[in-house]
């Protein structure tokens, strides 16, 4: 994923290669998550039949706190990118680790929620609701974990070397990826938790 383009340094469309590639990947992710959520909505009418229904199970305040955490991690990410752009690498490093921290808080909240549900009997094979719920939130959780790993890797790289070192995965595409995960969680939170 190097932002190094072959000997030409001019980009015909004025958008840097890496940003264009990241946005293409994000539009593919949009279709990916749209399909994911519509599978959940497709089976939604069957959820009330089983004994464990969404209304009875979901603990809305807890999940809205974790969603708020993810929303704030989006803020810290954009601050980190902002400080990186104005070459204040120390602050940028702090904020990037803050984002990674908020990300882990969100994931641990998610895992806690999973243990709650499994204890109350909802597993991936217990019912169609279980499968769909764990599938949607699981795949999103996987994306968040990958995001956190990348954040830590980039943050640590920023730490080791001096600021002008060109590491391959620039802050910008990482910020775009993280925001994408966040807005997808906004939609999942509404579709899975709030809509009856």
């Amino acid at each position: 994923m190097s932002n190094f383009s072959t000997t030409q340094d001019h980009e015909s469309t004025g958008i840097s290669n890496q940003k264009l590639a990241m946005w293409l990947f994000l539009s593919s992710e949009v279709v990916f998550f749209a399909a994911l959520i519509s599978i959940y909505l497709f089976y939604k009418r069957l959820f009330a039949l089983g004994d464990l229904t969404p209304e009875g199970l979901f603990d809305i305040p807890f999940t809205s706190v974790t969603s708020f955490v993810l929303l704030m991690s989006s803020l810290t990410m954009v601050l980190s990118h902002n400080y990186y752009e104005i070459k204040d690498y120390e602050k940028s490093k702090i904020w990037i680790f803050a984002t990674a921290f908020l990300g882990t808080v969100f994931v641990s909240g998610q895992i806690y929620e999973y243990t709650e549900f499994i204890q109350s009997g909802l597993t991936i094979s217990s019912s169609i609701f279980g499968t769909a719920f764990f599938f949607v939130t699981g795949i999103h959780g996987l994306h968040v974990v990958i995001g956190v790993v990348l954040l830590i890797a980039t943050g640590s790289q920023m730490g080791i070397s001096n600021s002008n070192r060109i590491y391959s995965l620039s802050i910008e595409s990482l910020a775009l990826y993280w925001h994408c995960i966040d807005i997808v969680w906004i939609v999942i939170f509404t579709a899975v938790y709030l809509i009856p």
Partner: protein
Amino acid sequence: MKTKSKTIYKRPNQKSKFFDLLTTVDHKKIGIMYLYTGFVFFLVGGLEALLIRIHLAQAESTFLSAAEYNSLFTVHGFTMVFLFFMAVNSGFGNYLVPLMIGARDVAFPRMNALSYWIYFFGAVFIHSTLFIGNTAPPEGGYLSEESNLFSNAVAGGWFLYQPNAGIQFSPGTATDIGVIGIIFLGVASLISAINLTVTTFNLRAKGLTLMKLPVYVWMTQVVSFLLIFSLPFITIALFTVVVDRQFGGNFYNVAMGGDPILWQHLFWLFGHPEVYILILPVFGMISEIIPVFSRKPIFGYATLVFAGFAIGFIGFGVWAHHMFSSSIQSLAQAGFGAATMIIAIPTGIKIFNWIATLWFGKRNLNVAMLFSIAFIINFVIGGVSGVLHAVVPSDWQQTDTYFIIGHFHYVLVGGGLFGIFAGIYYWFPHVFGKKLDEKIGKIHFWILFLGLHLTFLPQHWLGLQGMVRRTWWYDKGMNIEFWNLISTIGSLIILISVLVFILNWIYSKRMGEDTEFDPWDGRTLEWSTPLPPPEYNFYDIPKVKTKDEFWYRKYSVDKEDRSISKGNHTEIKKYTLATTLMDTSHIHLPSNSLFPFITGLALPFLGWSLIFRGSFTAVVLLLIGVLTLFIGIFGWTLEPENE
């Protein structure tokens, strides 16, 4: 890296040619590796097809058992669609697109190598189903004979309809190998699609605006969009199957309320754009070959490009024509039938544009041109039989019968394969600096043409006479042995033509007619390089003024709008050949990198760890897989860019 290389392969500073192949990031070498691997799988797929055809030659034949037959046609489907056709398309795409837009390499060279290695290891992983996976009869069913090589491969048809490909009705690990293998190939195609899109939009030569791009680059661009937007559907669908089969999910578990039709929707939402992903690059190649050999520009460039986008876009709205006989309401069926017919219009525009290019041209019927013209004929036959079952009522009679098999083989073999052979005969000099022999080429063409019609035309009639698709057994009483026999003879003729082609390939690679520069008086930029092209493609990045830039460098236009040669062909040749000896210090190429190979290597281990889930080997495989993945990715990011 100052290397004066006469041909692509010689890289003095590489320890060995083999190591260079593992670490290359040159778009040309990756393209050639795609083509070679794709062609190997074409032979494997062709062998499977032959076994099926020999089995079906006579009624009630016991040449193959049911399990072997089901595995054969499934692996034949996977191999031909994913491992041969998509590989050859992205091989041509990787090789030609940077050359046609005047770039030295793709936007992300190492990502390009990564997409090849993920494809390669995905292909190895899928074909491991022949040795590792095991299919068993559905729970409660019995199987009399023991399983052998083929009979334990994935056996659910290439679109793995649920719940038949679910855990209850095809237990065993073979289907999982097929499913996970396709996820890997999807990732490979997605990466190469993004790579080519960024290359096409960002790395064009000076003055090469979007409307001056060669039609082939446009078609590869439409394919990249189709890939980017249709692969998520298949990835999600295959994830649901992995969850269902491996972790006891209930997506398609009918007892828990799962709905198998959801799988069909998800699969065919990818399935139909997929067939346009296969055929559009071939449209692009034909639109490059016909103008060169009728020595006049492509007719109606803008409408051709627009028609390509129209096919791509409407391709997303027609997927349910694979499901007419399912229980979707009549409104949806009529709607999808109409939408399928609408796609025939842009395809018709394209075909009439090619024919119009032929008119008033100075024809040169060499082998590439023969293949292109045969492509048009076969594609129209395939298109017509396609429209026949876009008509919903007649599709109820024809779906899942041999009529459909006749249709898509006409379009894929008659259309796709002929187009790819046209591309091979046309660009072979560009890759190897030698021309494929015309005489053997013509023999190859006519035998293939005969074999195609003998094999697949009768299949239309078999379909109408009630021969259902995927039957390993048909009775004598069904009176359809005659045409099955003809079809088998036809498939043997196709085998002969492929052997003739291999002979031509081996012969011409050594004793072929030597070509230094621009053998066909080409029109697009890739012919302005010395053949075979050096590592850096263009000594100086070309300045583009008009469409068909290379043609108008050699010809000017008189008042009668005819081109007159500027007589500078030999000077251009001398200059371009001289550039290979000049100092190339001002050119800086990305260095080789082993990490794409390592990252690709990790994937089969992750896949096999899922297959052997629950045993100790699974843990070992998982460790190896995760370890190699981490080494690959972190090594990649820490690797200095431009050394």
